[in-house]
């Protein structure tokens, strides 16, 4: 069963394509890494899946009724100066249950504490988010993801500027999600991490360069090809002949 379906998907800004004519599907429960050079359209693709960016043409299909999407953007635009505690930020993950006015009951509090413990932040509950290090903040955002209990989890460069111990802990959570048969799609740069944790890889450079088993995709030939495909955007670009 497919969790995410791309049908001739083109995403971009001001009519310039950043993800160009992508076809394919991510199967339910798959653990997929998206890799590619800077500017290859990785973050744009995640935004498209999350529904934060409308396609220029084609479509991306997610069964939103059956699956909820949790999306952790690259450098999430969290206002770190806002006076709010780790506990309260993590508890935002329960929004779908609590909504505007719903109370946070004993079960919910147990779930929040459990999530905080799972990311190793026990003892930091009352700490203001402004006093957290980058790695601790990322742990808190992962705790919030845990509470969202989503079927599809999208992570945009979750391990950037994160130390080795934190990265290992967060990858353990990713493995756990995979074991729970959730679909996880993550943008990553570290090929060693991709090869050891992510069975599937999509290599993009505006278009899909290769998509399949990670060891088959991450070959020197493919990577060289990806780098060559990303020239500067052509300001005088003609209308794409492939556009319907």
């Amino acid at each position, binding site marked *: 069963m497919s969790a995410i379906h791309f049908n001739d998907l083109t995403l971009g800004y001001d009519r310039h394509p950043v993800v160009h004519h992508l076809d394919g599907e991510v199967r339910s429960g798959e653990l997929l890494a998206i890799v590619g050079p800077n500017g290859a359209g990785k973050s744009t693709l995640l935004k498209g899946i999350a529904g*934060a960016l409308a396609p220029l043409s084609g479509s991306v299909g997610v069964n939103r009724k059956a699956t909820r999407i949790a999306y952790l953007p690259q450098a*999430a635009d*969290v206002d770190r100066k*806002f006076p709010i505690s780790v506990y*309260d930020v993590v508890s*935002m993950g329960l929004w*779908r249950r*609590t909504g*505007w*006015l719903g109370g946070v009951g004993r079960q919910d509090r147990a779930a929040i504490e459990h999530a905080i413990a799972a990311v190793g932040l026990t003892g930091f509950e009352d700490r203001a988010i402004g006093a957290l290090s980058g790695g601790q903040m990322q742990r808190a955002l992962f705790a919030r993801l845990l509470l969202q209990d989503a079927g599809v989890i999208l992570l945009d460069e979750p391990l950037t500027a994160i130390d080795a111990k934190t990265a290992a802990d967060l990858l353990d959570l990713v493995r756990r999600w995979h074991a729970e048969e959730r679909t996880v799609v993550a943008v990553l740069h570290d090929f060693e991490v991709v090869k050891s944790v992510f069975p599937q890889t999509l290599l993009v450079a505006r278009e899909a360069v290769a998509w399949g088993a990670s060891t088959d995709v991450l070959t020197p030939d493919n990577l060289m090809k990806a780098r060559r495909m990303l020239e500067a955007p052509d300001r005088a670009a003609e209308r794409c002949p492939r556009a319907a």
Partner: protein
Amino acid sequence: MLYDALIGPFVEFEFMRRALAGSVALSLGAGPLGVFLMLRRMSLVGDAMAHAILPGAATAYLLTGLSLGWMTVGGLAAGLAVALLAGAVARTTALEEDASLAAFYLLSLALGVTLVSVRGTSIDLLHVLFGTVLALDDATLLLLAGIASVTVLALAALFRPLVMESVDPGFLRSVSRMGGVTHLAFLGLVVLNLVAGFHALGTLLAVGIMMLPAIAARFWTRDVTGLIGVATGIGILSGLAGLLASYHLGLPSGPTIILAAGVAYLFSLLFGTERGWLPRFLPRRHLEA
């Protein structure tokens, strides 16, 4: 002696009691809104919106004279129109919200001043700019109290999405479509309270009772609920102190209320326990961990 200074004026004069009730009502609504404006780095937005409501109130004044109801409706309409237009432009063009808001409020202010000067005398203009806190009649007091009640209830309902929208707007967008609604409802409350404040204090000072207590509160606590409590308290005390000062010294009451809030801010800036100036210079040893 103390009785004559602090309580006597309110016992003796009904207009003082009315002014006090009005300024307490204002503080209850405006204080919490000011806290959120400050935390969302929108401290100057209140100022812009206060200017934006002028043409609505002025048009109503030109058409109906000094009518409480119509000037309220006019001010609300102008303020909400500017908020909606600025929001729509920010969402659909390259302009950020601050730039589009600046454009619309300046346009609105120029229109308002033109309208007031077409027919009004300078006394009318003074009324619009500086309010009449010492001449609050029953209808105005009820309006102030009603707006304060609506504001407190609406903020209670909006509290959770408003905090989420302030801390992590992208996250709220990913789990709910309420982000935009929350933002607009919040701006609507700001306009509503500025219109309330403008009956008592005038357009230019209405924003003072909203922002100064909130900004002063930041020097005493970091917690959002604490900030709301402290800001509301400072607002109420400023109203009391400002009215007394204006009574004893024979000064105009609207500006003295804001001056009292300003003194509260300066005091907090100097002595505030949350990174005020003086505590910086008291050497305290750092902790072990």
